[in-house]
């Protein structure tokens, strides 16, 4: 365990000094600041105002940015480290491969999750100073969702960076995978597939296994419990899960998917050439 934490800490220090982390933190911190500057807390939409409104907007923006950011930065830096000879040197030190791999995973998870979470915490602190009500249930649910989605895409990123031997290939592969998820996020595409004879159950199944769609639907459930904006497919989801059940699925499924991908990555890493 000591070696695992040492590796995690080393990865955190490496990441904190990297340019991608500055951009990454700047983007999420910047979003919250911009939402305040543009008076989103004062506006009213579907009955939501104040911090609730800000958190809903923030989570919607996060769906678009977080997965691709986590994927690209993870695969780029891990595969890049391999190319640059970081693995050759650090793996010549007496450390087990499991401590190394999972230490890096843990360190990287802390680094990708903290800025997103801290931006939300910043918004809550600001709202508290201004005397606004804090929607703690919404805040906790969003924290769980963000944690799950960061874990999921980090696991996928670690798998890609183990498979791809160069940073360029890894980045290309990560982008293609993100595009596939994005494609099936498109309800129009699913609509066309259903019109062409795809059973509606299969379309719902695709939505339920696409981590992007799961994250997006869960974010919707939190402010629209009847999923009115989803139309008839809401019946399938709510009948299958219920509101709370779907939130649990939206947290548990991405964590399992991320863990499975990372575990697959670990076995490939352990089996193959290290540098």
């Amino acid at each position: 365990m000591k070696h695992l934490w040492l590796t995690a800490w080393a990865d955190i220090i490496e990441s904190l000094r990297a340019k991608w982390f500055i951009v990454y933190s700047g983007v999420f911190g910047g979003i919250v600041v911009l939402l305040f500057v543009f008076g989103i807390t004062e506006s009213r939409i579907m009955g939501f105002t104040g911090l609730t409104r800000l958190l809903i907007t923030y989570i919607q923006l996060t769906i678009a940015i977080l997965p691709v950011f986590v994927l690209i930065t993870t695969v780029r830096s891990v595969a890049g480290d391999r190319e640059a000879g970081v693995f050759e040197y650090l793996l010549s030190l007496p450390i087990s491969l499991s401590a190394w791999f999972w230490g890096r995973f843990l360190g990287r998870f802390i680094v990708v999750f903290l800025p997103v979470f801290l931006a939300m915490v910043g918004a809550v602190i600001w709202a508290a100073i201004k005397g606004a009500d804090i929607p703690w249930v919404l805040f906790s649910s969003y924290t769980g969702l963000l944690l799950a989605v960061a874990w999921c895409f980090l696991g996928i990123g670690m798998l890609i960076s183990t498979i791809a031997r160069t940073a360029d290939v890894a980045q290309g592969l990560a982008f293609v995978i993100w595009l596939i998820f994005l494609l099936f996020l498109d309800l129009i595409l699913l609509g066309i597939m259903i019109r062409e004879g795809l059973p509606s159950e299969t379309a719902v199944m695709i939505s339920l296994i696409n981590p992007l769609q799961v994250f997006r639907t869960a974010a919707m459930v939190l402010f629209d419990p009847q999923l009115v904006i989803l139309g008839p497919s809401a019946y399938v989801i709510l009948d299958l899960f219920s509101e709370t059940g779907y939130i649990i699925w939206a947290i548990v499924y991405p964590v399992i998917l991320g863990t499975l991908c990372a575990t697959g990555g670990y076995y490939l890493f352990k089996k193959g050439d290290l540098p």
Partner: protein
Amino acid sequence: MIKFNNVKKTFRRTEVLKGLHLEIKKGDRIALVGSNGAGKTTMIRCLLGEYVCEGEVLVNGLDPRVERELVLKDIGFVPQLPPPLKMPVGQLFNFSASLCNSDPQEMIKVSERLGLDFEELKSRPFVKLSGGQKQKILISIALGRDAKILILDEPAANLDPDARHIFFQLLAEKKDAVMLISSHRLDEVAALVNRVIEMDQGIIVLDDRVEDEIDLNSILKTEIKIKRVDEAFAKAINLWSFESADGIQWHGTVSGPDRLRFLGVLSRYAAILKDIHMEEKSGG
């Protein structure tokens, strides 16, 4: 101590190691020479358990791929190209020492002997240091721990003459350690070793003993006289910290193990050399 038994390594369709057989015994100090693509780095990576290979690699009877921690705790490694680590030097020492169960103070002591100011460098990112400083840090980590096997890939390439001399002294102190020193040129490392292994296209083409009685601690007091003042010569000899009042007569010191390399430099100016005198002084 180290055994390579019919070791083969293939990358896609290219066979880089073609059935390597080699036994390294305690007390062996080996120069591993060969041109680019000869298979030196691949061999080192197989020894460090970083590559999967056919055949058998054993270190003290253990497979470095399976018993990583047990094997690597005895191996100090200096790579040819320093890794672009962003962590500060102080943290790198602590990180390495913790993994190796060593005292970081020992690594700091070695770095200071090599001429580094640890207090000044400890908070600077490793990647921002000069090539020579990085090399010294990596040498400090490898020599500041209790390593029984030293694998050094072009270790002195970026060192100035003073640091090279200290480096040779440090190696001399590691009397019982097995050394595998990889280099493109034999003259760079000849004086440090007692065995030479030359590789070419994935096989060992030469495995020979070297009888060299040179004391790794020795210093040669050197005087050189040239026929006329020469700018290029002055530039080259200044790199060895030689001094001259008139540009004709030069004096300085050369580390014993560096003599072959030094004479190699002088050979480029054979046409203007008039007199060379080298006298060994005992002790460092």
